[in-house]
């Protein structure tokens, strides 16, 4: 059934292009955000990859957490792991660096940024967090470590 659509005449293909293009044309704001993403690309920090997201990786746990309105994400580099719990209403982030390390943590939500520092146990908190694309950048005062998480949608 799907194939017949592409096996039709050239006129039918042009019609299909017309429909697809007009239905999917992104609003200007979307295109501008996409352009602006380039200036936020990371050129120094090491990427901490997302290795767990309760929204998709663990149904049972996700169901339990749903009761408490929270989502857990964890990111990893060979040297450290970073776990955050995101609570809803109001949205706040409670995070922890392991092993516990004094670090400066920047929550990046383009075009805004917020900065906090970890406590002695490696915990940190961001209050009143907005929805949207987000990434955390974490570095030690002496600069031995400079890590940035993959982008996620909060």
């Amino acid at each position, binding site marked *: 059934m799907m194939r017949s659509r592409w096996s039709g005449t050239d006129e039918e293909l042009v019609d299909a292009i017309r429909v697809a293009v007009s239905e999917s044309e992104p609003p200007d704001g979307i295109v501008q955000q*996409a352009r602006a*993403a380039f200036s936020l690309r990371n050129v120094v920090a090491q990427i901490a990859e997302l290795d767990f997201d309760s929204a998709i990786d663990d149904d049972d746990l996700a169901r339990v957490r749903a009761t408490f309105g929270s989502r857990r994400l964890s990111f990893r580099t060979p040297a450290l792991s970073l776990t955050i719990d995101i609570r809803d209403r109001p949205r706040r982030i409670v995070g922890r660096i392991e092993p516990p390390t004094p670090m400066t943590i920047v929550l990046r939500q383009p075009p805004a940024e917020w900065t906090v520092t970890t406590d002695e146990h490696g915990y940190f908190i961001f209050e009143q967090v907005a929805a949207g694309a987000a990434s955390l950048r974490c570095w030690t005062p002496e600069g031995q470590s400079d890590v940035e998480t993959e982008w996620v949608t909060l």
Partner: protein
Amino acid sequence: MASEVGELVRAAAGGDEAAWGELVDRFASVVWARARSVGLSATAAADVSQTTWLRLAEHLGTLREPDRLAGWLAVTAHREAVRVARLEARMLLVDPWTELAGLSTEEDPVARLVETEQTVVLLEALGQMPTRCRELLAALAGDPPKTYEELARQLDMPIGSIGPTRARCLARLRALVLEAENSDYEVAKSSRSSE
């Protein structure tokens, strides 16, 4: 032909902002179509689109197959949209008013899915076409359709070459969409980490 995209990816990875802009021009509609395909609100779809492009900026230098950027973007946007949809569904469980609002869907979800797949496949293929073909096909598909005289003027081409170029570009596009459909479903395709 697809290597035009690969070259743009490599140039952008090297810091070429104009190359990045061209990638956005070619594929913003693919990401947008995907972001909206699982029934997200416009705001949530906008967040998914932004996350997808930020992910690309972050991974520019490490893409396994720069030539297959269209597929990478479609898969990344799809996965991110599913994540956000799950979170929104979770909200439904705790918010009866949102749940009630979500019940009024009169569309056939299967038909909608098939249509989205076709749209995304076509947009991916369009984004991979050489610049000349993309310009011509965009002009041809304009609403209202342009005459060959208008096309010749707009694209600065001899009028006699429009017909043959149109046929060649459409044949190439058809080959790309058939190839995409004959391979596995996009998500399965990208989880193979070959080469």
